[in-house]
């Protein structure tokens, strides 16, 4: 199975770990993530205004080139996933945006939302299956109590993202269970960590990160995993080191024995 893959700006630089272990693990599971030939940064924020067309074009370009390759498009970074998935909804459902975006793009075949956008976790669940993943685990993470941190970008708005129940998600918990560890459910896992304001209002980012980590720790989590480089930064740098925070792909690589092989 081969997917088109959109890594995004951060995964090539500060978020290398997310990308590296993500690809290595998928390869070990027999799935190829084929990086799109000419991708551009998605912009990291979905432009909500209906008259914002130019800012949606990088996402449309990625979607159209996956369509041309006849592949589903996998994303890994939460922000990229959020932007690309929502732009895809616009292209499929909003005639105003679709017409204008296509006028700009001048593609050979106009794009109308044909590509299926999957988050890495969805591909893992639907293509590999968490049951099968459990069988492939070489180093079960037994005894570890891990809190899943979803943040805001993966879940909301649920009508467009269709990722999981926006108020009580379970996919990362299922993932943690498949790796042999114990998932810790805590209510703040779908609340925003405040990372966006780290440039603007650092004290607030610190306060909000603290709330998330306190809740996780008080519910028994001993470590946190995330899919978002900004959450990673914020929880780690502004969270005061209360709990170790890691990318979920690193945990996956560890359990599959990919990490030790690479090292």
């Amino acid at each position, binding site marked *: 199975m081969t997917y088109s893959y959109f890594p995004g700006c951060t995964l090539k630089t500060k978020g290398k770990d997310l990308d590296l272990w993500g690809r290595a693990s998928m390869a070990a599971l027999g799935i190829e993530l084929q990086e799109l030939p000419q991708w551009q940064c998605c912009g990291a924020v979905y432009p909500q205004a209906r008259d914002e067309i130019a800012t949606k074009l990088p996402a449309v370009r990625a979607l159209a080139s996956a369509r041309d390759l006849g592949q589903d498009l996998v994303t890994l970074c939460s922000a990229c996933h959020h932007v690309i998935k929502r732009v895809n909804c616009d292209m499929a459902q909003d005639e105003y945006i679709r017409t204008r975006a296509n006028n700009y793009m001048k593609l050979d075949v106009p794009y109308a939302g044909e590509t299926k956008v999957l988050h890495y976790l969805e591909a893992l669940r639907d293509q590999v299956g968490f049951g099968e993943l459990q069988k492939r685990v070489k180093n079960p993470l037994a005894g570890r109590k891990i809190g899943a941190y979803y943040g*805001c970008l993966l879940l909301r708005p649920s009508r467009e993202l269709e990722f999981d129940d926006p108020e009580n998600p379970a996919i990362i918990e299922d993932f943690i269970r498949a790796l042999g560890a114990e998932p810790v459910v805590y209510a703040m896992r779908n609340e925003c960590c405040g990372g966006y304001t780290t440039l603007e209002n650092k004290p607030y980012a610190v306060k909000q990160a603290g709330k998330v980590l306190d809740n996780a720790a008080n519910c028994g989590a001993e470590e946190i995993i995330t899919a978002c480089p900004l959450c990673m930064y914020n929880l780690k740098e502004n969270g005061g080191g209360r709990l170790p925070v890691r990318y979920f792909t690193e945990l996956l690589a560890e359990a599959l024995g990919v990490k030790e092989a690479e090292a």
Partner: protein
Amino acid sequence: MSDMTEIVKRISGVNPRKCMKCGKCSAACPAYDEMDYHPHQFVDMVENGRLEELMNSKGIYMCLSCFACMERCPRSVEPAKLIEAVRLAVVRQQDRNHLKPEQIPALLDPELPQQAITSAFRKYRK
């Protein structure tokens, strides 16, 4: 200003009249205490033509775009879209960019992901 109000309603796609004033948006908002005007006030003030006050507020830069208000609104009013539209109405004006490139170096730290800067640029300037 009334033209501007219409533009804000149009580009956001929000119909403020759908609001039933339950305040769940402001109850869900994690950045409530950082904002001078709160999500439910955006809806009410746009409806009542008080756009200028919103455009001069600091709250528009404190919204996290976490969409908790959108997700939990019982009437699908989508305040987050309205807040973004007001912010756009400001930064689209000449010399009203909230973030300037020369400010960036001072804000950087070695671990800061690109995502933070990219998103700040997209949110705060045109």
